[in-house]
């Protein structure tokens, strides 16, 4: 048996391929790590249903745990992943990287046509920002622009 903490530490270095400052632990994608008869099992939640990065994430998790032994990854969708699973440290890293972190809680997002939140510019911290496009460079992001510094930036959707 390998110490679970050692496995968690190893997973902290597995970065999301699209947002390379966030680890799978920061994102809250790893739901459980357990060992059965020398085999390591990791339950991983998908972010978006069609996120093309999931295969890469699974491969990277496997590779990072290879030194500890055979690893099997299970994709689990219940309870569904939301941005609420992202850690506070993860949100800070995201903003420092230039992506505005999700605003508010995802739990109330099942309403249709909810008003857009006030998103803070990750560059100059102004809250005077405009939504440019609901869909951005990846499935999880919207495109915003700051009215004060004019910088366009990605917003990680609260989801």
């Amino acid at each position, binding site marked *: 048996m390998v110490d679970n903490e050692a496995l968690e530490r190893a997973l902290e270095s597995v970065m999301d391929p699209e947002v390379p400052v966030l680890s799978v632990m920061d994102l809250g994608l790893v739901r459980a790590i357990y060992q059965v008869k020398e085999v390591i099992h990791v339950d991983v939640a998908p972010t*978006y*249903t*069609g*996120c*093309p990065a999931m295969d890469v994430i699974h491969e990277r998790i496997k590779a990072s745990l290879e030194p500890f032994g055979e690893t099997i990854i299970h994709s689990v*969708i*219940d*309870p*569904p*992943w*939301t941005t609420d699973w992202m850690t506070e440290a993860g949100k800070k890293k995201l903003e420092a990287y230039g992506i505005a972190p999700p605003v508010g809680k*995802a739990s109330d*997002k*099942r*309403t*249709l*046509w*909810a008003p857009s939140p006030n998103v803070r510019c990750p560059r100059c911290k102004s809250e005077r920002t405009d939504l*440019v*496009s*609901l*869909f*951005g*460079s990846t*499935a999880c992001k919207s*495109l915003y622009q700051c009215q004060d510094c004019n910088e366009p930036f990605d917003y990680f*959707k609260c*989801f």
Partner: protein
Amino acid sequence: MTYQMKWDTCDPKTAYVLHLADDALILGQRLAEWCGHGPILEQDIALTNISLDLIGLARQYYQYAAELMGEGCSENDLAYHRDSRAFMNHLICEQPNGHWGDTLARQFYFDTFHFFQLEALAQSSDERLRHIAAKAIKETSYHAQYSAEWIIRLGDGTEESHAKIAQSLRHFAPFAHEFFVAAEVDRAASEAGFGPKVSDLSSSWVEKVDAILQLATLDPVDLGFPKKGGKAGLHSEHHGYLLAEMQSLARAYPDASW
């Protein structure tokens, strides 16, 4: 590929899951045709994002259907090795993209239906469908917001955009009517409790659609005489062309992988 297709013996739940999967795959494929052709970059990206969400959702359903079929059936068999008559998507999903307004009118009707369908599926008696719906409804509310905003922009835009979107909305209304006319696959699902009674979804849909149309200075929706048959496998001629393009690689090179 050793799996032998047996659609005629497909049980009601598998058929229903395939119907849900087919809607998502066929519309996802249609939207993917916009890739590289959007009027501006942001809109190109938006439609392909929605396409990606739908194809991801289709995979969730096909994987489930494949498990229900058993005997080594895979998601790829279901997506790439079935013929048109075995597909149970709504006719609206396979209709050609047309111009930008046509695509957005089709999307607006579908997204709004999809949202209420998923809301009902979140109460399904089937656990797996509940889980898939709980996840997909979040993405779908973004899609619905996006397509509704475009209806408002085009309807409340110029004289020309108003006339064009009104025409597109009229064109797709009888196709949208099919959402609420139960086919065999819907009846079996609602009787067994794993799917909603589709006629029950129509009032929420009409209410939401009309609210947006009013903001867009457009006339309320008139569903007209339904154009139906898709859920029974009777498709328009567009369906075959779509499948030909989507399935050709998988059929020419079985077991091809990236």
